[in-house]
């Protein structure tokens, strides 16, 4: 046997192994999802009514991804061949079909309560016996091949198809929300039936959305001036701010149209956006990791409670201090949070990196435990908290509803965003950026380390204090248990997912990480699985975040050479 033949055999067996292993992996994931009961839950949510459920979409997506991954070049396999994809699909399909027949023939429900005949039917697209198994295997092979084809498409085409498919998925998955909004307005009601039936997205609606999204995704390609180069797309200010304006418009309109529940969700998102912008100053600009951030939020909430509540714990009740209206209490809450920020910053001034994370975590917990303690109970109410915080009022108008409080939060967030934006471009903002990059050198440049760091904590805390103040009136009461470590971690996660240092990223991160679990309430504890999945996926696929800050995006910018491009690079 010649050496060449040997090599060929080696490659063949490698491709074979790759196909079988990835296929088996996919089947395992599907079996896992089925066994824990997630598939059954997902099956209750349609993507396209009567055609495709979320569970089926997930299964197809797994097969699709397997096909896609089988075509990736890796260090071990420099020249992937197409047939590994259908092979992987075949293996996955056969294993899943075996699993389905196992469920039908043996009763495993005493161990895994989720392994029911309906699950088997779901796997086999509702068909019984051999034809169902055949359908499952065929579907798996086709989806995997489609994934492989997709991977082989040019990058540009993929950039068109992916957002379009995502749009259909989102419009289908969240049909309940969208339907509520569509029913709010005569114009919407007029075209809504084209897209949605009573039980979800229609097939023609899905196709239309796909086409519209495709056109939108193609827009940048069409509008680009002939002869211009890629970087020039960012040189029109309106084009860069258009997405932000769109999001703002969405934020303005959706809560009124969507009713109280959606307004409530958006209100929560708004509060997290406020906090995210604060932590973004600390971490995104100054590079100070802070896991005790919730302490500032709690400070704002408690100060508002003590000053405004109609309760024996309110200052007005046992001192000569009058009862404050919300509008007077809010600035004081912010001020209190700022003081807390400075107090918080002093002990950790010299602490860096990993140690800073642990130190701030400890400080945050101390604040919560002090609030909860019996010692502070006469003032702060201990675990019972402070009740009966009145809603804000302007003249005769009371911010009683979630919708009105949402607009209050939105106004606060816009103001805060403006402040954050100005801060980033200020002298102080530059000092923070230098500190994050290299503390010693920053000092050698004449930056006052102590002052700059404390100001970073102070400003970050101000934003959180504002959010806390609104939170207090939103829930009418404050309890120590509302201010858990998890909240700090949520804020941290959302700014990292959104893109550190990026204002738009904060909004996007909050929408995804706070909005998504809310939208998936019916999945109970599983929604945190999605939360984790969203975290891992964004960090794997978009390590700079969903909407990276300009400063980070520029890392790959090549120097401008020659007059033409030098001109184009100017902002």
């Amino acid at each position, binding site marked *: 046997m010649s050496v060449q033949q040997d090599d060929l055999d080696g490659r063949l067996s490698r491709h074979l192994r790759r196909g079988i292993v990835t296929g088996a992996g996919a089947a395992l994931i599907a079996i896992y999802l089925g066994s824990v009961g997630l598939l059954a839950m997902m099956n209750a949510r349609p993507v396209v009514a009567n055609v495709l459920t979320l569970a089926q979409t997930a299964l197809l997506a797994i097969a699709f991804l397997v096909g896609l991954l089988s075509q990736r070049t890796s260090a071990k396999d420099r020249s992937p061949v197409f047939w590994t994809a259908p092979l992987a699909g075949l293996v996955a399909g056969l294993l899943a079909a075996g699993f389905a027949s196992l469920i039908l023939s043996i009763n495993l429900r005493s161990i895994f309560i989720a392994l029911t005949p309906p699950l088997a039917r779901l796997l086999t697209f509702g068909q019984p016996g051999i034809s169902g198994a055949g359908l499952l295997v065929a579907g798996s092979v086709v989806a995997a091949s489609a994934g492989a084809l997709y991977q082989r498409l040019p990058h540009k085409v993929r950039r068109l198809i992916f957002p379009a498919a995502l749009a259909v998925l989102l419009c289908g998955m969240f049909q309940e929300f969208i339907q509520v909004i569509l029913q709010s307005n005569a114009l919407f009601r007029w075209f809504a039936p084209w897209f949605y039936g009573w039980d979800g997205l229609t097939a023609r609606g899905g196709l239309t959305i796909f086409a519209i999204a495709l056109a939108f995704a193609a827009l940048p390609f069409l509008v680009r001036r002939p002869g211009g180069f890629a970087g020039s797309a960012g040189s029109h200010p309106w084009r860069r701010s258009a997405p932000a304006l769109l999001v703002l418009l969405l934020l303005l309109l959706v809560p009124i149209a969507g009713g109280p529940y959606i307004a409530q969700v958006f209100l929560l998102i708004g509060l997290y956006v406020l906090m995210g912008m604060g932590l973004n100053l600390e971490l995104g600009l100054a590079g100070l990791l802070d896991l005790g951030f919730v302490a500032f939020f709690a400070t704002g909430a408690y100060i508002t409670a003590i000053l405004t509540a109609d309760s024996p714990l309110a200052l007005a009740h046992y001192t000569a201090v009058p009862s404050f209206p919300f509008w007077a209490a809010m600035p004081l809450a912010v001020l209190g949070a700022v003081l807390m920020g400075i107090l918080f910053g002093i002990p950790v001034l010299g602490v860096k990196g990993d140690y800073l994370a642990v130190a701030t975590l400890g400080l945050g917990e101390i604040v919560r435990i002090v609030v909860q303690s019996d010692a502070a109970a006469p003032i702060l109410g201990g675990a019972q908290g402070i009740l009966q915080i009145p809603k804000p009022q302007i003249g005769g108008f009371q911010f009683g509803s979630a919708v009105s409080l949402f607009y209050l939060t939105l106004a606060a967030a816009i103001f805060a965003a403006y402040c954050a934006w100005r801060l980033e471009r200020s002298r102080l903002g530059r000092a923070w950026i*230098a500190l994050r*990059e290299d503390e*010693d*050198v920053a000092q*050698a440049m004449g930056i*006052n380390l102590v002052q700059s760091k404390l100001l970073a904590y102070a400003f970050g805390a101000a934003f959180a204090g504002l959010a806390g103040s609104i939170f207090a009136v939103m829930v009418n009461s404050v309890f120590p248990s509302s201010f858990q470590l998890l909240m700090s971690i949520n804020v941290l996660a959302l700014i990292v997912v959104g893109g550190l240092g990026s204002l738009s990223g904060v909004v996007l991160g909050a929408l995804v990480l706070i909005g998504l679990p809310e939208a998936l309430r019916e999945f109970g504890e599983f929604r945190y699985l999605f939360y984790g999945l969203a975290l891992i996926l964004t960090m794997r696929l978009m390590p700079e975040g969903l909407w990276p800050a300009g400063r*980070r995006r*520029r*890392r790959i910018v090549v120097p401008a050479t020659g007059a033409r491009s030098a001109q184009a*690079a100017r902002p």
Partner: protein
Amino acid sequence: MILEIENMSLAYGNIEAVRGVSIKIVDGGIVALVGANGAGKSSTLNAISGLIPIKNGSIRIDGQSSAALKPHEITRRGIVQVPEGRRIFGRLSVEENLLMGAFSRTDHAAIAEDRDHMFELFPRLKERRRQVAGTLSGGEQQMVATARGLMARPRVLLMDEPSMGLAPLVVEQVFDTIQAINAAGTTVLLVEQNALMALEIAHHAYVMEHGEIVLEGPGAELAVDERVVSIYLG
């Protein structure tokens, strides 16, 4: 005397890195501080910049002790360090790095002028003003570090091994630049491994070994001193 170090000692824990060092820097000169690895040169510069505390002795700026001053206050008195290993702000652009150097200044018009002047001094940087500094070549990064230091309009520029890791031809350019900077009126304290070249351009020089000054004299003299030659060439 713009900068005077007298009998200065400092330690990292129990390790005495610098012992009884005295250095005088008069206005307008180039002073070289040379010595082998670990001799304590960078430690001396960091002590001058206020980044590490001294144990004994004194550092005086314009005759006043700098003991109570914070690093940024020393910078504002015109003593500016270009640190070892360049340590530019890697995620900022070349231009942003330069502007960062002028952080403690408020004369905006003059800052813009100085920036343009830096681009004349280092034409390579002008071409790359919007490039992220971390992606520059080593020599270009050294140019950024030097220009950033000059942007503070220092009275004394403390340069820690500006020739580190550079090709001989580029080293020549760096030394030419140092002389040009000095000719324009900036006093320079130059720390170098590249001892012979540093001694050649220095008006006055100190040789450091194991944390102590072992030799001192005019640069040109030390350059031919057999003790120096034996340390560095033999």
